[in-house]
């Protein structure tokens, strides 16, 4: 027990890194994912094909492969955003495919009358999407979007051997240093992740409830 609390600063610093990765990669994934979702429902076939190919390629690649490509591969090509940037890029790209899928199902879930009404008053595709369909789609898909962010939280652990001292890296170090206390250490770090997941899901519940009323 004491070992865990003696190293509490390592624990906190680990989760601070995890949170940093989560915010950076999450923001990137949201932006990229929205763009990809729009291409997938756009009237132009070439754009749809690009979006579909992107999603099916990224979704079927293990995240570790993407990290290897950005962390080891890109610098070889002379493209380097620093190790934090490279890993964030891999995680953002990976998550964006799932966010795009969630958003697309949200777009399909917006009542047909909404888009029809927008068209009837003469809105082109761009306006229909940005003013009418997407705002409602976002509200519809709050739960699946947040579960993608929860998945991302857990996926940030993959940065553990790539020079970022996030929570799972710290866990691994402490398990090696204090083998006899491993159950306490494991429980402590598990609790850390569970807290993040709980915070994210309560935000989801709050947003869902709030936006449902205003609809």
């Amino acid at each position, binding site marked *: 027990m004491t070992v865990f609390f003696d190293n509490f600063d390592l624990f906190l610093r680990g989760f601070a890194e995890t949170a940093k990765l989560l915010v950076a990669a999450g923001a990137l994934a949201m932006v990229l994912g929205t763009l990809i979702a729009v291409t997938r*429902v756009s*009237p*132009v*076939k*070439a*754009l749809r094909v*690009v979006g579909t190919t992107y999603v*099916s*390629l990224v*979704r*079927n*690649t*293990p*995240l*570790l*492969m*993407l990290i*290897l*490509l950005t962390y*080891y*591969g890109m610098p*070889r*090509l*002379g*493209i380097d955003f620093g190790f934090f940037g490279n890993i964030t890029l891999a995680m953002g790209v990976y998550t964006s495919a799932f966010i795009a899928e969630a958003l697309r199902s949200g*777009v*399909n879930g917006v009542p*047909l009358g909404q*888009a*029809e009404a927008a*068209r009837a008053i003469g809105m*082109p*595709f761009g306006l*229909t*999407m940005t003013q009418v*369909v997407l705002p409602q789609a976002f509200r519809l898909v709050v739960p699946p979007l947040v579960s993608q962010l929860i998945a991302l*939280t*857990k*996926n*940030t*652990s*993959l940065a*553990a*051997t790539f020079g970022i001292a996030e*929570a*799972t890296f710290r*866990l*691994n170090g402490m*398990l*090696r240093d204090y*083998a006899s206390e*491993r159950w306490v250490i*494991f429980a402590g*770090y*598990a609790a850390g*992740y*569970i807290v993040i*997941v709980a915070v994210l899901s309560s935000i989801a519940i709050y947003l869902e409830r709030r936006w449902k009323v205003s609809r």
Partner: protein
Amino acid sequence: MSSPTVLFDAPGPKARRRHRMISIFTVIALLAFLAVVIWRFNETGQLEYALWEPFVTPAYMELIGQATLDTLRTAAVAIVGAVAFGVIFATGKLSSHRIARWPSWLVVEFFRAVPLLMLIFFIWSLYGFKNGILIPLILGLILYNGSVLAEVFRAGMNAVPTGQVEAAYAIGMRKNAVMRLIQFPQAVKVMLPAIVSQCVVTLKDTSLGYYILAPGLTVAGRAIWREYDNRLQTALVLAAIYILLNLLLTWVARMLERRLNRSEANAARAVNEAARAARA
């Protein structure tokens, strides 16, 4: 593409011209992107034959093939284990006894909330961080994917129309028989897509063997890039193999699903015909 078409009008001549412009622009942008990638590869000497050599050398191809088999075997064992785990804990969660429901809920929620890699590291530590063992990877995959599948199974069982369940109770079946004979067979069909996507997740997550040096594709790749110093090329080849395997898995599953649906359609048709014959 039936529902998205409601988002835009059938294009007139002007819109058609604009769409053609955007299409051409997209293709050009894509080609430009590819050209830049190839140019960067060429500029930095990443296209050198020496860096790609292992992937056309029989000995290394054999190594990769063997590693692919290892990975597939790991995934298969993990999936079978996860399904068993899922069935057990879904039954627990659906149980009418609080003593079974509570612990099942706790186990499932815990393993779903904790990162898989952390779980693998912990189980690995129980084995003294020994190199080259598969057990931590397989156990971790079973615990995590099994918990997700338990949720899938529970949702699938609950998705069976209540009329079915009530009818079964009405003719005197016990809960055990209702779940086994009425809910489960109907739920399987509904759950198939979710189960398949979980299989893809499991296959992708076998790559985490990299962190504990468990035999598989990623560790074979590591051996290759340590010898040839070609991480970029190895990562590309491994990613291609994973994508291929996953697309194959998805395709097989889709065939299976179509078959299941067809047999259901056939059954429905047979039932209809029998009903018509009986009426005549």
